[in-house]
């Protein structure tokens, strides 16, 4: 359900990581997230394009799995946090094509990328407090993209926002007028980044990571906050109500 393809380009080989579960709006499972994380560990690629097949980038965690077993939610939160760190610490560029929708856990993935392309009608956001789940895990990395003020407002309000608002707060880098242009535009942006001299690119990215103020302890602490209410009565009742 995660497709990993190497393809040649005029900037060297790049890696396409495609979420391939369009029948379930690309809902993410622990295995898919761990496959994504493993695919991001390729030392020989020029860069990564993370995209989704079908109508949307991804609707987030597979709630059916959460309904069946709390452990799946805990595993996905851990893998999500690890994926974001893997993108951020990657010496190569990572671009996400977030077309259509990037919701909840899938929206949290965006915070790890160097650039995020979406489309005007796309819906993005963190509606998980409705389900008794805390999006705290995203707080430190989202705050780096949007600032702490917008991250606070965004994580507490379960409403989804459109691309215009996402670009205003810095959650997305740019928005295409037409949904069918998102993956192609993201591909172009990746080729541009991948064509930079690799040492200068990797050194600059590493230096930004050092100076942007992200504390590894905060990342752990935020993950723990989300994990602390996995399996709460509130979460179980609200997730169960999705199928009642």
């Amino acid at each position, binding site marked *: 359900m995660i497709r990993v393809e190497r393809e040649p380009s005029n900037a060297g080989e790049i890696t396409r990581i495609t979420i391939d579960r369009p029948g379930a709006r690309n809902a993410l499972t622990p295995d898919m997230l761990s496959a994504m994380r493993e695919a991001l560990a390729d030392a020989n690629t020029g860069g990564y394009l993370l995209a989704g097949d079908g109508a949307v980038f991804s609707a987030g965690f597979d709630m059916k799995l959460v309904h069946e077993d709390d452990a799946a939610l805990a595993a996905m939160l851990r893998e999500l946090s690890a994926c974001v760190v893997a993108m951020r610490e990657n010496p190569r560029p990572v671009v996400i094509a977030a077309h259509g929708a990037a919701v909840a856990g899938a929206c949290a993935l965006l915070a790890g990328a160097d650039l995020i392309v979406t489309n005007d009608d796309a819906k993005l956001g963190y509606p998980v407090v409705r389900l008794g789940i805390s999006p705290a895990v995203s*707080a430190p990395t989202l705050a780096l993209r949007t*600032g702490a003020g917008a991250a*606070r*407002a965004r994580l507490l309000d379960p*409403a989804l926002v459109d691309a215009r608002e996402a670009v205003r707060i810095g959650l997305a880098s740019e928005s295409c007028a037409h949904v069918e242009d998102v993956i192609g535009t993201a591909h172009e942006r990746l080729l541009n980044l991948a064509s930079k001299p690799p040492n200068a690119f990797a050194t600059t990215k590493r230096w930004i990571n050092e100076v942007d103020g992200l504390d590894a302890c905060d990342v752990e602490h*935020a993950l723990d906050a989300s994990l602390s209410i996995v399996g709460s009565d509130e979460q179980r009742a609200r997730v169960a109500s999705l199928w009642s």
Partner: protein
Amino acid sequence: MSEFARLDIAGNIATLTLNRPDKRNAMSIDLLDALRAHVASLAEMGEGGPSVLMITGAGRSFSAGMDLKAVLDEPGAPERLLGSIAELTLEVRALPMVVVGKVNGAAIGGGCGLVAVCDIAVTHPDAKLGYPEVDLGVCPAVVAPWLVRKVGAGVARRILLSGGTMSGTDAHHLGLVDQLAEKDQLDAHVAALCERLAAAGPHALTVTKRLLNELESEGLADAVRRGAELSAEVVGGEEARSRLAKIYGS
């Protein structure tokens, strides 16, 4: 005796109203005491209390800011006033519920400081917001730590050093407020926002807010309290006194 702040609780949503409309809800020691008493009662309710607090102003303004006129000639009073707004901001931030600011009209100086403390602030395009303190010879030291956290250090520097005020549209553009609604739709927009928040899992909201507070807590309380001292020092200086005297016409 008039009630300088009103607290109304309806189900899961509390509303705290600055209620001194004849003075554009200027923050006097009495008004701050009234606000803080209500905030303390909300804090005592803890997680079992309302999950959303909406703060707004009675009448046409949100708040015209610190009522310095009333305290200028009383020794020790500026320190008390500024110390009180500093504590109020810390107490509001520490509340377990999500705090929404409905900026119904002008939010100036300390009034706009309270806006920056809200988790989610909403206003309309024609509202007037800002920090004109430097124009008055005063230092917006209490709000500075909050504004830096709300809009980022670069934008905060520009806003606080430039003084003046801005429109609701510009405040939204700069991130000082999070959402913008047309003036005649502000009430309905904020009501819908509060309903949405109140329908979320209260425990999930509380855990998320607590984590957000923990991530920003380092040095915050010290900076806000030190800001109150610094601000009082500047208010007591000759520059501020002569400028404020001109404005107050005394």
